[in-house]
């Protein structure tokens, strides 16, 4: 009994103590970036290289350049476990840290992005959902603080279709395309676009939802492999769903060369568990692959000096590179903002201006040593997507290889789609469109 009481008392005391303690605050002239990571939980295999990429890039900027124009970067990781409420909690906990507050949030989860759009807009913190989240947030008039560069899911669907069309000899008329998708907000994103393209291009489009988490796809692939027998299969998968899909596709003998995944079905963690079955599998990517870009020399050197933060095995993996590019966009936006507001730590509002006036030209990419890792983007008040593009890569059994150049989506029709959808959101929320002059 004594032991029980003591234990309970100790528990109560620690609870109280933690309630009183306040989180530490960053130093004066630092640019603070909250990092919402998922190094554990069902999507940890994807979350770990992402988080490593962020850590390494910011460490590199601080060590090699002494920060951005003398302003050091500060960051704090917060574990979300890919869980929406934990993501909100992390955001709220970290948004006030640093001398100017959070300057950018990268949720890396479509669900968390949705949950943060309103909060971040109210708090004037830019959200960079790089290749995920709401596609219609590309309309900067309705979503001033949300950025979707370099490319959205809808644009990704267009790129996929363009690639399939080219490979099929210039026409998809009468062909069959199947979409295998995670049955969630994320997976449903491309459907409207693909349905429109099906009408325009004359192919037959059928969709196969896969229930979360995606361990069960036997029925799906029996339908695809034995009944429908499509010419192409596109996939919007996530986590364990990807490797399972590849295995089941192999089990019904579907050719991997005709199987294209979106950029979230494109990492090493998605194909390695499928073993040899994955050889020949293709996917889109928004960043270049491999470690050939000059920046990797600096990163390797940093690691040789024992100052790298990432697991070495993750350097150069698809998601690590994506995080590098993401951080690069951020430092460029910071630089742009500093050019207008002075060389000090920027507030979220100033960073937002920096993003809207961001112009990542090929020259800037080369100067940063990121050649081949990304395509140029240029944002404006209207356009928060910035005209980026995607490559198609193929898994050869041990590594990814890019098999095309960056392919640009055809944005005219997409832009109409964005605006229509954003207008519906604005009407529901009672938002008046921002005037973009």
């Amino acid at each position, binding site marked *: 009994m004594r032991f029980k009481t003591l234990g309970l008392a100790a528990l109560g005391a620690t609870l109280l103590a933690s309630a009183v303690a306040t989180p530490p605050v960053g130093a004066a002239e630092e640019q603070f970036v909250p990092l919402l990571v998922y190094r554990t*939980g069902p999507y940890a295999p994807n979350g770990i290289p992402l988080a490593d990429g962020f850590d390494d890039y910011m460490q590199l900027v601080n060590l090699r350049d002494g920060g951005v124009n003398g302003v050091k970067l500060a960051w704090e990781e917060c574990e979300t476990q890919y869980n929406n409420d934990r993501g909100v909690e992390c955001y709220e906990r970290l948004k006030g840290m640093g001398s100017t507050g959070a300057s950018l949030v990268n949720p890396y989860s479509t669900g968390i992005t949705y949950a943060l759009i309103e909060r971040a807009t109210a708090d004037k913190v830019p959200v960079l959902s790089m290749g995920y989240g709401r596609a219609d947030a590309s309309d900067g008039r309705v979503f001033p603080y949300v950025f979707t560069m370099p490319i959205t899911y809808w644009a990704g669907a267009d790129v996929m279709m363009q690639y399939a069309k080219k490979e099929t000899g210039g026409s998809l008329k009468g062909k069959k395309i199947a979409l295998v998708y995670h049955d969630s907000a994320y997976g449903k994103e491309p459907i409207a676009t693909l349905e429109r393209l099906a009408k325009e291009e004359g192919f037959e489009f059928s969709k196969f939802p896969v229930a979360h988490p995606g361990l069960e796809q036997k029925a799906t692939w029996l339908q695809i492999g034995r009944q429908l027998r499509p010419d192409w299969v596109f996939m919007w998968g996530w986590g364990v769903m990807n490797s399972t899909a590849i295995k089941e596709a192999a089990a019904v003998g579907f050719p991997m060369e005709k199987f294209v995944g979106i950029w979230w079905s494109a990492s090493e963690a998605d194909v390695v568990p499928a073993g040899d079955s994955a050889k020949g599998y293709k996917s889109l990517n928004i960043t270049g692959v491999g470690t050939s870009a000059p920046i990797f020399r600096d990163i390797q050197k940093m690691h040789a000096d024992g100052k790298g933060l990432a697991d070495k095995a993750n350097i150069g993996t698809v998601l690590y590179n994506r995080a590098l590019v993401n951080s690069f966009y951020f430092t460029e936006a910071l630089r742009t903002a500093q050019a207008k507001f002075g060389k000090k730590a920027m507030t979220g509002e100033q960073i937002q201006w920096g993003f809207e006036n961001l112009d990542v030209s090929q020259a800037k990419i080369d100067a940063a040593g990121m050649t081949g890792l990304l395509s140029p983007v240029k944002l404006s008040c209207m356009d928060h997507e910035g005209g980026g593009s995607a490559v198609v890569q193929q898994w050869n059994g041990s590594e990814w290889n890019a098999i095309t150049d960056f392919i640009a989506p055809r944005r005219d029709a997409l832009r109409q789609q964005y605006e229509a959808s954003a207008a519906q959101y604005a009407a529901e929320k009672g938002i008046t469109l921002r005037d973009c002059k």
Partner: protein
Amino acid sequence: MIYREAGQFKSSYGADQAIFPILQDRIAVAIMLAIAVVVIPLVAGPYWLETILVPFLVFSMAAIGLNLLTGYCGQLSLGTGGFMACGAFFAYKLSTAFPELHIVLVFLLSGLGTAFVGILFGIPSLRIKGFYLAVATLAAQFFLVWMFNKFPWWNNYSPSGVISAPPRAVFGDFYLTGTQATPEIKYLFLLAFVSVMALLAKNLTRSRIGRSWMAIRDMDIAAEIIGIRPLFAKLSAFAISSFYIGISGALWAFVYTGSVEALAFDINRSFQVLFMIIVGGLGSILGSFLGAAFIVLMPIFLSNAPAALGLHISVELVSHMEFMIFGALIIFFLIVEPSGLARLWQIGKEKLRLWPFPY
């Protein structure tokens, strides 16, 4: 010393049956409410209000609902997430279809709708019992989430299936949802709403219907023999429980997160609420609050503790430790006091009555 009831005489059955028969309790509750209404909004920052107190209150509501069914009527349910989804989507459809409808009315109506769904899925309980029934409610869980996810009518044909709450005011300019809503208003509204609903629930359990639930829980055949209709008792428990859970789902989507997709109400949500009532105490309204506080606070506490103590541990390890400590704590609590936190509270009160004397 101060917690003595000597000299407090009751001259009517009504006074004897009051929820707080002891004067000190009434004072304590009044003080607590005063602190909750006046002090907390002034002292707590938006972080505390938004990410701890608001979800705590929403979860308390869900826990009360489940406790009515599982704790009072003894029907184990794992469909909580599905019923929360019902509430959220009903509220969304109602508030977008009838923009002039008052938000509180929207919540209550969506609760009513959920109650109807609850009755529908409660029918198997007339024949199936125990863990077998739990699986029947799992059918509700999976089916409902699938339905809201699958048919775009529920989310007004939004391309991604995510619903987001339209801006609505409680009265005048006090917005409860949307970008203009402040954490203080959200918190105060929830506090008032949940307090009233909790009081209702407490009184319900002390009424004829509540007693019939408990009779069914303790032994349904015996209850039937003494003239309690299991059909009515069980289905009313399902209905009222779903009513509470549905409202909590609507509050979750509208007040807490602001936008939500059907998958947010997956099976883990059901387990979360079930943990709350088991940790807090089955068959106790107070326990629902305590359990909700424990489950909401504990992970946040565990993930913040190392940083607060000045330790620099990688987030991975913290998160793994969080799992392990959480699991160990559940086992520890069950060994120490299987009837939950509410029982601990009661023991504490008994002790306090006698303190400082041993007898």
